[in-house]
């Protein structure tokens, strides 16, 4: 598929637009307004990047597991969708510098005996399809169930299915706040989340990195993070 090519070599689907993908099913990172537009941390970051690039932000909603494929096949210019940097993905797409730091956490029902990764052996763990959490889970158990979204997985856990869910600690926390009968257990590891850019578009990668740097410097990223989480998750933890 042919894209518009800017003078500096940046390729865009449409020369005035920054079309960025998110799932809309990962509250509070991305979720739907009542007018079916998306909002959330990821989405505001995406819009801030567009503004910095001088382009019109265009949201594009895709099921999470289809996003990387969507970027590869040119259905969006970039994905601001909480993608954790990992080597497999790096083979297929490019990552910018991280725009937030987080980590997968074990979630269980409140009465569960599972506390740490050691307790996961042989237990049934549900994760979202296409997320790095299925790799994480695979290190501790071989009984993995997959859903299309993290929240569906948490919902299933809450209604009594499966033994645990591994997902981002922020997501789990907000689901618990919304009344899901789940409890956070061990934080498994640290992860870095970044914007996803097609590999054949190095100029765009460069420009998005510059934009992110600017947003870090002028405090925009911290401000958005505080708005959604009450804390700043955009700084690398020590």
């Amino acid at each position, binding site marked *: *598929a042919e894209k518009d090519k800017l003078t500096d070599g940046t390729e865009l689907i449409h020369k005035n637009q920054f079309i960025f993908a998110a799932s*809309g*099913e990962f*509250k509070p990172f991305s*979720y*739907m307004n*009542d*007018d*079916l537009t998306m909002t959330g941390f990821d989405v505001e970051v995406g819009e801030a990047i567009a503004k910095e690039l001088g382009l019109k932000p265009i949201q*594009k*909603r*895709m*099921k999470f597991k*289809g996003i990387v*494929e969507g970027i590869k*096949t*040119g*259905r969006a210019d970039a994905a601001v969708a909480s993608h954790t940097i990992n080597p497999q993905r790096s083979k297929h797409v490019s990552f910018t510098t991280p725009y937030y730091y987080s980590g997968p956490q074990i979630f269980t029902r409140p009465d569960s005996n599972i506390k740490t990764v050691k307790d996961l052996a042989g237990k049934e763990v549900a994760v979202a399809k296409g997320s790095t959490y299925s790799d994480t889970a695979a290190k501790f158990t071989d009984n993995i169930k997959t859903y*299309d*979204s993290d*929240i*569906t997985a948490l*919902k299933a856990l809450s209604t009594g299915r499966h033994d645990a869910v591994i997902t981002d600690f922020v997501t789990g926390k907000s*689901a618990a706040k*919304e*009344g*899901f009968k789940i409890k956070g257990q061990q934080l498994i590891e640290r992860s870095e989340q970044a914007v996803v850019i097609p590999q054949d578009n190095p100029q765009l990668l460069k420009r998005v990195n510059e934009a992110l740097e600017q947003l870090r410097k002028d405090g925009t990223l911290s401000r958005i993070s505080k708005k959604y989480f009450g804390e700043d998750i955009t700084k690398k933890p020590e």
Partner: protein
Amino acid sequence: MPSLAHFLHILAETKGLFLNALLLTLKLTVVSILIGIVIGLFFALLKISKFKIAGFISDTYVYLVRGTPLIVQIFILYFGLSGIFLLPDFWAASLALALHNGAYIAEIFRGTIQSVDKGQMEAGRSLGMTKALTLRRIILPQAFRRALPPLGNQFIIGLKDSSLAAFISMNELFNVATTLGSNNFDEMTYLLIVAVYYLVLVALMTFVVSRIEKSLAVSDR
């Protein structure tokens, strides 16, 4: 299970959203059935042509579509087509559904074309009309009429099948329901609401189809 009051409250609150989604569902269905009719007609004509290879191509198409789940077809076409040329999402989804519907519609047309009396073709030929002309002017109009009720039925099936476009990011009824459901951490309410929308749509369509059937039965010449 949500309480009835809660259900009704959300139903009223979200009607604008769902109406938009419903329009997309209808657009997907109508467009995919219309393209499906073109595709179906094409393959039905291949099938009845005197060339063996054409019949074989038609059979293969129908077999591939009938032999695999729609969701597999949708994914293959959505991701596969983008390797070749990038259709806008709506058209990619419509085309995937259309190729699915097309196989079933091809079978409908094949059936109704073959159900037209052979004497009709002979009468046309005996008047000096070519085979193509007789097909176009004499056989197909009659075959189309007979195809209306099964096409109506296929429309209803297509309406329900369009829910699978949710998985390739169409904001149609089912997608909106699950998204809102997961955002509001209240899946059941939204699923039940969307079920009601489908039930009403299908009931309306069923009524329309039965009316068409009746009016055809009356005016049957």
